[in-house]
């Protein structure tokens, strides 16, 4: 294994992670809810009336975060190599599968593991495994 020391950013990764943890802490301790983006978003498709507002507010917070960041500095680079068709395909299967599996990186990966939920640990192992495998196949077997 070859670690990319030039691009490895341990301190901002830990600090950013701690902020994500803080956000989930606020959400469970004040709102009483799990900060799982799949669940928050999916619940908007057939919403209970009283649940529409807080779900949208959380998503709006995510969308506004780059604007808040820009008040203090410039945004880090965004590099997306994938073409539009691949992005659409990936988006589609992420949307279907995260609902089917009841969670994504936030709900299972962060909140679920923090709760020591066996379900979430299994789900996280599953998506990490195919995440690693997919990049291996695309970059090293197909050589894209």
């Amino acid at each position, binding site marked *: *294994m070859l*670690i*990319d020391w030039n*691009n*490895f950013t*341990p301190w*901002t*990764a*830990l600090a950013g*992670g701690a*902020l*994500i*943890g*803080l956000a989930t*802490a606020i*959400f*469970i301790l*004040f*709102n009483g809810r799990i900060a799982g*983006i799949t669940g928050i*978003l999916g*619940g908007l*498709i*057939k919403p209970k009336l*009283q649940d*529409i507002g*807080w779900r949208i507010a959380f998503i*709006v*917070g*995510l969308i506004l*975060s780059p604007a808040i*960041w820009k008040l203090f500095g410039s945004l*880090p680079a*965004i590099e*997306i190599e*994938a073409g539009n068709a691949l*992005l*659409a*395909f*990936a*988006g589609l299967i*992420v*949307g279907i*599968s995260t*609902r089917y*599996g009841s969670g*994504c*990186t936030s709900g299972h990966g962060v909140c679920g*593991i*923090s*709760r020591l939920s066996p*379900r979430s640990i299994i*789900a996280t192992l*599953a*998506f990490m*495994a*195919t995440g690693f495998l*997919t*990049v*291996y196949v695309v970059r090293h077997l197909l050589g894209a």
Partner: protein
Amino acid sequence: MNKPHNTFQALVFSLLSGLIFGIGLILAGMANPAKVLAFLDLAGRWDPSLGLVMGGAIAVGVVAFAIAKKRPHSYLGFAIQLPTSRIIDKRLVFGGLVFGMGWGLVGICPAPAFVLVGSGSDKGLIFTVFMMLGMVIFEVLENYRKPKNTPHKS
């Protein structure tokens, strides 16, 4: 009787959580799909950062959820709603496996997708629109499979 979740306080704390979550993602470099893919590329030049992001988030989360588990109500008086399902089934595993494929193809998962939209990324917007379409398709298929009178569980 549970306090309804549509109070002004609930909206403010929800917005605040989303904002802090998004800023955490940007600071951690996770709003850049290339950096996410660099973590998933074990056989290439590996960037372990995403592992530390998860570690940092879980370190704080473990404490928060330990407190939450002991409380019937949140600090704002809302019921604390923790998932109760303990069933490890085909849906959970298969859903996770397919999600990892989509994630590995482009390096975007649901939370960073919205941060990309807010950053003005057209490609991020395409991913996000199709992700939401995927969720709608899921809902339609679920309703088709299930009889009307069973409550939907998410």
